[in-house]
């Protein structure tokens, strides 16, 4: 592991350091933030200064504190969503691949239909119906995005299933659980781990986008997407402040993408 890291390109190092930085923010948000997440501590739109390092927002809350708490809220919600996405997608994908037959057909066709509606659009429709709260947000995104994980998991599992060693295990009479646990999973983990990074980025961006539209994480919770929306008017006055939460989103996404890109590159290098 350490040897790998030593050979990693600059971009990967940048990614790893950034992710570590965000983790520190998330864990120590309470200690690091100078003010409370939701209390109004000053006047509206105060400029950067000694008291409020990054100024205040449209209600007079401290921008820096909300940025720090936003890390905890936005990232953890995206992470939970991605985990559900994965659990669902991988489970269904492996089931469809190993059991095959009508079950595979049924799930695959269902996924085809779900994927033939652009994801954000479908999410908007479902959020209208189920209401805009965190639980429905997480579930709607997780279910819709799990279709992509399903496709990948099924495809990589299929690659294993056509292998002779899998046939040998079947012919031996091994049970389904053993086949999945010992034959398939160890072989499909590397691509799935890379996919986890990519899916996290995607989910993170979708949730931020929905929050930005006012349909995701709801006030007064500090969240990067809605912070951009709340303070957008400042941009027309040439202020950078409202872009900070957006930059925070971009920075983390870039970091994850760099790490995934490095891992994928490594995997393709090993193959040849």
């Amino acid at each position, binding site marked *: 592991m350490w040897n790998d890291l030593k050979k990693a390109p600059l971009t990967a190092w940048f990614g790893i350091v950034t992710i570590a930085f965000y983790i520190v923010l998330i864990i120590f948000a309470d200690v690091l933030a100078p003010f409370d997440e939701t209390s109004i501590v000053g006047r509206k739109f105060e400029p950067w200064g000694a008291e409020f390092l990054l100024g205040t927002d449209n209600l007079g809350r401290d921008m820096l504190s909300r940025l720090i708490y936003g890390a905890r809220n936005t990232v953890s919600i995206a992470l939970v969503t991605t985990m559900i996405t994965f659990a669902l997608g991988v489970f269904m994908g492996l089931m469809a691949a190993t059991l095959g037959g009508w079950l595979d057909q049924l799930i695959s066709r269902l996924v085809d239909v779900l994927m033939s509606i652009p994801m954000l659009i479908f999410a908007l429709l479902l959020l209208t119906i189920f209401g805009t709260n965190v639980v429905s947000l997480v579930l709607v995104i997780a279910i819709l995005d799990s279709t992509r994980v399903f496709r990948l998991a099924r495809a990589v599992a299929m690659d294993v299933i056509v292998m002779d060693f899998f046939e040998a295990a079947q*012919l*031996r009479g091994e049970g389904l659980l053993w086949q999945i646990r010992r034959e398939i999973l160890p*072989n499909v983990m590397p691509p799935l781990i890379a996919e986890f990074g990519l899916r996290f980025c995607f989910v993170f961006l979708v949730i931020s986008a929905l929050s930005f539209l006012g349909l995701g994480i709801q006030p007064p919770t500090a969240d990067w997407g809605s912070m951009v929306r709340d303070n957008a008017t400042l941009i027309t006055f040439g202020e950078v402040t409202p872009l900070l939460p957006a930059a925070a989103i971009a920075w983390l996404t870039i970091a994850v993408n760099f790490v995934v890109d490095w891992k994928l590159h490594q995997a393709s290098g090993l193959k040849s």
Partner: protein
Amino acid sequence: MSDILLDIKGLKVEGKSADTWQQIINGVDLTLNRGEVIGLIGESGAGKSTLGLAAMGYAHDGCRISGGSVNFDGIDLLNLSSAQSRGLRGKRIAYVAQSAAASFNPAHRIIDQYTEGPVVHKVKGRTEAKKEAEVLFEKLQLPNPHTIGFRYPHQVSGGQLQRAMTVMAMSCKPDLIIFDEPTTALDVTTQIEVLSAIRNIVDEFNTAAIYITHDLAVVAQMADRIKILLKGDQVEEAPTAEMLDAPQEEYTKSLWAVRSLKSPIKPAPAKGDVPLIQVQGVTAAYGKVPVLHDVSFDIHKGRTVAVVGESGSGKSTAARVIAGLLPPSEGQVLIGGEAFPTHFKQRSKAQLQQVQMIYQMADTALNPKQKISEIIGRPAEYYLDLKGKAARERVRDLLFQIELEPDQFIDRYPSELSGGQKQRIGIARALAAEPSFIICDEVTSALDQLVAEGILRLLQKLQGDLDLTYMFITHDLATVRAIADDVIVMKDGALVEMGSREDIFAPPHPDYTELLLSSVPQMDPNWLTTVLNGRAQER
């Protein structure tokens, strides 16, 4: 004008793997006269294809020529501009690839791919080139020589495409052609046609050629001289007849000796013995595509039955029916006199244990994420209930039986093994179940000859020690001669002939068996000429 066309001196080629450059060829010399054919022989990793390409001043993506010189007709190929070397390639030096199907562009008609060489190199015009192509198509006995050029590559069969590629190499009348295993992917009956085509055309235009192959008998037909390579070094080189009769080096002698392996004749099974395997009137299909028609045969205990046939003959399907992987639409399979359920999922543990398989591609047959101890230990644990220490002891015994040092191998992963070692692990996994019957599906065809011979000897030894019964599926008649007690010949999903090895190999034969047997290249350099003359007279 000197007689020497190609002069390679101290050639070194490197390839990049895991970010470091590794030598593929470590300083090899090669000289070739005008009109001469040299055969390059070697096992996988010998560097023969790399050497062939280097003769064009070319290296694959990820490889580079790092030393030595390549002199072609007075031109230093390694110090040419890109435009100059492009001017030579295709025009004066041409290349015929192993897989014509992959090397023809699917987007263009064959004739257009033929004419582009002469037109771009300004050798002749399109119309003239087209006419010449038709003449060559006819000469190589391609069907419909006047129209076949208007087809797209995927509309033509593999053997025909390989001949079309030879024709294409000829389009600018080059001085030198590199043939890179042009018949390796073909069935024997197709191979002989392509071989004769290549030889005719090389003779007719007095073209020099480098013929790359791993098959000694093939190269004996094609080459004036033979050069033997091993891991990027030359072993020896001599004129063909001399090389065949009196090889100097140990390595060469061992290559030659492989073909003499022959199992002793076993007494015929007693009458009235119940055969271990009885296949009775089996008809089977993949979906709607029929693959087996009313096939019946018996396999007796303690014997090796070879099932031979070309691709599409249904030989592997027969094995899959026995294993329960493909339930037949008609007929049944009795094992030890008992009718087994047709699908393996309905078979009991004890029934599954009876039939084990060894696969062709050892790479895909072993789970790359499991250690050897688990790969071999699992069947022992599953069928024989061996746990912990007992299972590990059993794995050690089995490794010992397959002639691999237990301490060294038990905790390795498959990626840390060579091809032959992997195949041995595949054998051990089958043995671990303590089966009565083992299906060997082309188990040696992906291996180099010396390694393959080792596997065959091991299988013979194990048969003697453990009283095993083998069904040996192969397309290679040399393997059949080496190991089979009985032979079944199949074609197009039906049985052509069956009998003991002596019966099958002794005339008279049914037509198809005759064709098959006579198409297998022999070490005699005159074999191809004799067979072709013989066939011409019959017509």
